[in-house]
């Protein structure tokens, strides 16, 4: 579950409470500090080096009461994973792959077999040395049906668990069923953290990894604590410990930050009202994660009228993404122009058709849907859904498209509305490597294909790209794939939004992008 809509279906029933509380908060605080203009949201967190030591207190939404520390599980307690474990490969801030437990990797001329050279002298928290057997076991654990890992759907078509090779303690050989030049990028997923050989049954409780922190305590949907692992291969983390608290309600999380009970709100995209209150506080401030979330208005291509590609094109040409960014995000983000690949991705292409309501009108007339009227479903699941829907509605009016925004219940939104209603609002976290993004969300028949789009040309381009080991040529092919999604696909991508993260003014060295969080460098001033 945490894979897609990260802040889970967990915390939202009382979203009404949250927004009302935020409003209450803002009038109270502005009342206290005199009639000032709303503070401008800071662009970045406080600069400067942290002091060594101290305990960082993080409030997080629990995944569910059945949470586990098994990284492969769909119910894993996300914030613990990066602290406790390492992957073979991670994503650097520039979107390129970077070594983690694997120091280097190479493939044969056909991208059929991948060889990973593993870091030497790394030990798990229980003192056992990390070897290629652990890396192979981790992959087999993810592919094991009993684990029910969301990442299995991506890896199973590629890997035969029986054929993984470990010629020596520090070499892992992965033969693929079909060529894939982007294979290492699939191992950056947070379900792919490396666990010790044979630990499937116990890992959910013990949390034994090679990461910068080791587990002291953990309670599902409750409090937990990790302490610095001094023998970590990249050196010891700045902090002595991290205390995790699970707080389901979003307004309760921001209250805890304002009251100084916690230092960082994880997986919480603050709404603008709350963000202003937090930024105005003496104790806390806002850090932005640039383009962290990618917002979508999926059109179900199996439902009328979206079965007709002209209608889909008209829906896209009809609205102005810049207008949506201005209205729904108050400028805190980037226009998407219906391309789901984030601008920070190395494969990103910036070309796109211009906003053209007249052409949209013409296409609709051609398709026999002049003056199209549609219901667009949203919910309070995410604070930006409804503003985005209303901005779309407003913008598409000029093309004669009449949109009725309907609000559905937040807690059953992803079981009742998503992938069921022809037009609705949703979002994903950015940070997926381009191959994973296209394979998981746009390829025919894939598990998260939320527009049910099926296009043979697109699938063929994807296959060709995967088999292409020349980096430049491969990027061109992924560019072609983007053009197909923009021109023929069912997903409208109005915007990439910055995530507004509430942190204490004492926090230094906070760095987060995609699914990467810098646990080593984060610390506190005056801890």
């Amino acid at each position, binding site marked *: *579950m945490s*894979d*897609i809509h990260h802040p889970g*279906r*967990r915390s*939202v*029933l*009382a979203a009404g*409470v949250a927004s*009302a*509380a935020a409003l*209450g*908060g803002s009038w*109270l*605080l502005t009342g*206290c500090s005199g009639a000032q203009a709303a503070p401008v949201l800071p662009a970045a967190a406080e600069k400067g080096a942290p002091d060594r030591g101290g305990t960082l207190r993080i*409030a997080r939404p629990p995944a*569910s*009461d*059945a949470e586990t520390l098994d990284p492969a599980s*769909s*119910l894993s307690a996300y914030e613990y994973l990066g602290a406790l474990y390492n992957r073979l490969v991670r994503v650097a801030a520039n979107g390129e792959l970077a070594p983690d437990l694997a120091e280097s990797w190479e493939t044969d001329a056909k991208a059929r077999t991948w060889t990973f050279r593993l870091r030497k002298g790394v030990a798990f928290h229980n003192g056992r040395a990390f070897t290629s057997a652990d890396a192979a076991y981790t992959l087999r654990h993810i592919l094991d049906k009993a684990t*029910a890992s*969301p990442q299995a*759907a991506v890896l199973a078509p590629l890997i035969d668990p029986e054929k993984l090779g470990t010629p020596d303690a520090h070499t892992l050989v992965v033969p693929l069923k079909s060529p894939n030049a982007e294979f290492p990028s699939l191992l950056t997923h947070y379900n792919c953290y490396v666990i010790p050989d044979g630990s499937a049954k116990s890992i959910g409780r013990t949390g034994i990894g090679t990461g910068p922190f080791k587990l002291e305590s953990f*309670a*599902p*949907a*409750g*409090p937990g604590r990790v302490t610095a692992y001094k023998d970590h291969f990249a050196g010891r983390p700045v902090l002595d410990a991290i205390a995790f*608290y*699970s*707080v*389901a*309600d979003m*307004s*309760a*999380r921001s*209250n*805890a930050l*304002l*009251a*100084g*009970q*916690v230092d960082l709100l994880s997986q919480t995209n603050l709404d603008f009202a709350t963000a202003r209150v937090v930024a105005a*506080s003496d104790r806390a401030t806002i850090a932005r994660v640039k383009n962290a979330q990618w917002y979508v208005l999926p059109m179900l291509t199996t439902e009328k009228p979206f079965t007709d590609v002209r209608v889909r094109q008209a829906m896209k040409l009809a609205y102005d993404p810049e207008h949506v960014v201005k209205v729904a995000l108050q400028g805190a983000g980037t226009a998407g122009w219906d391309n789901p690949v984030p601008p920070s991705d190395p494969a990103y292409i910036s070309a796109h058709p211009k906003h053209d309501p007249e052409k949209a009108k013409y296409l609709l007339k051609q398709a026999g849907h002049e003056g199209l009227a549609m219901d667009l479903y949203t919910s309070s699941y995410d604070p930006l859904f409804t503003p985005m829907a209303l901005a779309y509605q407003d913008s598409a009016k000029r093309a004669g498209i009449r949109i009725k925004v309907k609000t559905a*219940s937040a*807690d*059953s939104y*992803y*079981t*009742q509305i998503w992938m069921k209603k022809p037009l609705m609002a949703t979002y994903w976290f950015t940070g997926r490597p381009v191959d994973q993004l296209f394979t998981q969300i746009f390829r025919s028949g894939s*598990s*998260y294909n939320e527009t049910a789009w099926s296009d043979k040309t697109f699938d063929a381009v994807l296959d060709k790209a995967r088999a292409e080991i020349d980096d430049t040529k491969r990027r061109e092919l992924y560019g072609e794939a983007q053009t197909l999604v923009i021109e023929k696909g069912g997903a409208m991508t109005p915007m990439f939004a910055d995530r507004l993260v509430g942190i204490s003014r004492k926090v230094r060295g906070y760095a987060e992008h995609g699914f990467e969080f810098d646990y080593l460098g984060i610390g506190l001033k005056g801890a």
Partner: protein
Amino acid sequence: MLSFITRRIAAAVGTLFLSSVLVFLAVQALPGDVATQILGKDATPDAVAALRTKLNLDQPAWERYGHWVWGALHGDFGTSLVSGKAVGGEVSMYLGNSALIAVVTVLFAVTGSIVLGILAGLYRDRWPDHVISTVSLVGMSVPEFVVATVLVLCFSVALPWFPAVVLYGPDATVSQLLPAVWLPALALAVVMAAYIVRMARTSVIDVMATEYVTTARLKGLSTWRVVTRHALPSALLPTLHVIALNVAWLVGGVAVVENVFNYPGIGKLMLSSVQNRDLPTIQAIALISAVVYVVCNLAADLATMALNPRLRTRGRTR
């Protein structure tokens, strides 16, 4: 009198039976299939089908209802679909935490509001009455989560006297929870007290206008004595019912307030169970709330009867 009690108890049992049926039906009507909700979006159709069989969702509804009520009568509420633990134990742990808030709330609300109500009644239409009546009207109209949020902003954020949220889990000890109890209790007490203040005020005004109070005054008794010895007992009688109803209301109001404070009580358990579609837990909480409601009402009725001579003897004079 005995027949009145029997009838009243029979009615209570009937109410409970009806509420168990309604609870069961309402939970069945929750949107979203339980199996998909539990397994998440990544579930395969096979896994969903297997879970449906495991949860007996393929059996007819009346059969599942019978099974559930039979278990509940024996104190067995089944196992949680999410944590896999016995629902009875889970619910009582959270219920215990909520009871802590409830006790403090009732103490705050009852003592505070009776004193205020009597003052308002005695100073009828003078400034203390105006102040108390206005404030209680406001308290009545503002939802509890707003009161709670304002209290947090004043007493946790601006003045750091109390914690804004509870960071402990449901197994927290009483001493860990105690500092966090006051604000939620105060928020609930403010909303709850308003009704009791209004009721107490009216009763005091009524009683003070009666002949026996006038007689007592003419006898030369001090106002204090008249109020405590003669007026108060009669004035409290109708208030009792309002208090009982409000205690029952606490069960619901606590859900909202606990969420604002992240307090590990029954209200929070209810919210997360609804989100997770943890049917056995939702059903158990709903049924227990119904029991609290019915028992509070029954107790209020019986206590009123015990205290009111006219009601007590009605059966015989007819």
